């Protein structure tokens, strides 16, 4: 049976992505699953240990439970904070005022600064003895805490600092363009009907941008689970104790500092499953609140 030219061409266009996915994503995912059943220190041949890595991970005294709890708290609150902040700044940029271009630049500027530089600046700013944050507090007679070394505060400081990451800046740009697409007539009609700003926001803006809101929610959740490492590792290294030890960081430490590739791969498999479940759940729930037609 001869293939028609028209039926082959689309697949040829897709081929580079399929090859790239198979080599750089599919292959490593399968490799990680296989390695999760082994004990491997990278330098000597791996040995098959069956489910032992998973059993250790889920055992009663395992640190995995603490790390999972920190990961989920960080995920929920970092997504809420980054979503709210990026939507808030995008709304500000859509106000009818002069100089929104300048504001846009300032809001987005932290996103283009390399994260590693930002984290060292944050370390300095939040230093208990020499940091500017505690210096400002001392001017009003307050003694500042040890922000990044206090286990009750560290996770919250790190979560709030997410607003300076590239991802939040990108979310803001996406929200900004979505807000510009909301038909102005809807607002005019609502104003005639006497709607106030709050009503307009919840009854018009949110439903109108709900597909974009959903997109940012899903990608923000995935980002929080998988790439929080880049912020947390240089900022707190997961400490004090395990106060900011999220799973992506623990995977790195086990794989490349303790050379426990098998255990780290088992953690990666679980993180993959959690991320997939979260995304699936969000897709399921989205049917109730995402409106694809204006």
């Amino acid at each position, binding site marked *: 049976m001869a293939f028609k030219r028209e039926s082959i061409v689309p697949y040829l266009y897709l081929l580079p992505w399929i090859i790239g996915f198979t080599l750089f994503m599919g292959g490593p995912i399968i490799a990680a699953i296989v390695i999760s059943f082994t004990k491997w220190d990278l*330098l000597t041949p791996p040995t098959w240990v069956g489910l032992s890595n998973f059993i250790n991970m889920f055992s009663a005294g395992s640190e995995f439970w603490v790390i999972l709890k920190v990961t989920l708290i960080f995920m929920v609150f970092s997504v809420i904070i980054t979503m709210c902040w990026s939507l808030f700044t995008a709304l500000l940029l859509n106000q009818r005022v002069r100089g929104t271009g300048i504001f846009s630049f300032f809001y987005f500027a932290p996103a283009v600064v390399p994260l590693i530089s930002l984290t060292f600046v944050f370390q300095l700013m939040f230093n208990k003895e020499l*940091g500017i944050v505690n210096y400002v507090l001392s001017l009003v007679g307050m003694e500042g805490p040890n922000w990044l070394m206090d286990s009750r505060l560290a996770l919250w400081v790190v979560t709030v600092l997410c607003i300076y990451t590239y991802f939040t800046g990108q979310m803001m740009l996406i929200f900004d363009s979505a807000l510009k697409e909301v038909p102005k007539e809807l607002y005019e009609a609502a104003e005639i009907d006497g709607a106030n700003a709050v009503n307009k926001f919840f009854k018009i803006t949110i439903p109108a941008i709900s597909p974009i809101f959903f997109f940012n929610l899903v990608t923000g959740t995935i980002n929080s689970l998988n790439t929080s490492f880049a912020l947390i590792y240089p900022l707190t290294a997961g400490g004090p104790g395990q106060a900011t030890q999220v799973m992506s960081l623990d995977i790195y*430490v086990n794989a490349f500092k*303790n050379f426990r590739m098998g255990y780290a791969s088992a953690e990666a498999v679980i993180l993959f499953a959690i991320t997939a479940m979260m995304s699936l759940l969000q897709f399921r729930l989205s049917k109730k609140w995402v409106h694809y037609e204006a």
Partner: protein
Amino acid sequence: MKKRLLVSLLVLGLVCMLVPAGYSADTTVVKYAHWNALSEEYNYVKAFEEKYPDIKIEFTLIPEAEYSQKLTTMIMAGTAPDVMCLWECDISRFANGGFVIPLDDYVSQSEAFTLDDFIPAVQGLIEMQGNLYGLPWCFATEIMYYNKDLFDKAGVSYPDENWTWEDFENAAQKLTVVENGKVEQWGCDALSFQGLWYSLIGTFGDDIVNDKGQFSMGEGAKEFLKWWYRLTNEEKVVAPPQISTSGIISTDLFVAGKAAMAFNGSWMASVYRDIQNFKWDIAPIPKGVRQYSTLHTGFFTVNSASKVQDAAWQFIEFCMGEEGQELINKAANNPSARLSILEKGYYRVQGPMGPENWDAIDKTAQFAQWGYVLLPSGLTFDIVKDFNAAILGQIGTDEVVEKAINRAKEILGEEGVASE
């Protein structure tokens, strides 16, 4: 004719691509990795290239925090450099995996040095490994730094090798300045470098790593942590722990003149020698139930997959010779592990304000041991985070030691941890 010209140009282009830019065809290129940046003033790589113009060294700087894992992944990817300066905890792993070659034959034929010229601790480590897989680029210890101006102001006598922890505590109390209920000057800075925890615990009697190579920590660690907690939180003479990711801190209270004493690696003398605004000096870590400090080094090794092993050895031989050792010692303020060079004191490069008491390093070298440096760096990374949490009162001091032992069992296996 045109075709032949085109082919010739293509061949020429290919040859140009194969020979690295700036090198002639008969130049041998040796790739070399280290965690220390090359000093402009004491550049041993440049000195080697001037002496051996037909060998070029391609230097790769790998940050200390990622050094071990980066070299491991490079080995696995087949991209590891020809000469690697390996840490104590890595050299056995690399040797057992056959990733570095034995240097016995090269050393026996060398006229630059002999093996009996090395400090005893290095000889011991070489014996532990069976064959000779690496040569120590220099060595370092962990010591105490103190601000002489602040000591003079408080009327406290300078620390020496006879100081005990009691002397330290008394001095720290006198050197702490409180104004309006806020500490303006600390007796001692918090522990920033990860290894210091082990060195101080060692003075409280724990082996850290016993003679069987097992992780060994217990009562000494509990006692030390309780005492350090008291000094930090009750006496408030030691600064509370600050964020220190992988040993890198963005603030240093000693340099800022806000801490009269600090503990750190002897290599920090090469950083502190730039201090301009106060006089400072060094002393051994005070005594507890015994004197203890950690010995550090790195070993020049040759990658077994290297195609330029002879040239790689030539570079190592130069570095281990007097000319190379002098430059290395001066650059990092680290003494040579070769006894005949150590006594010449090349490492004693003084800044305008200090240090003067170089004997502190020599004396420390006499009792210092390979301790935690033989353990995987990840274990230290995990344990130290918990030690900081204990000093901040977030976890009990006894609990943190039990946790450290369990963590060591997880990573090293039951056989890697001494029974209590």
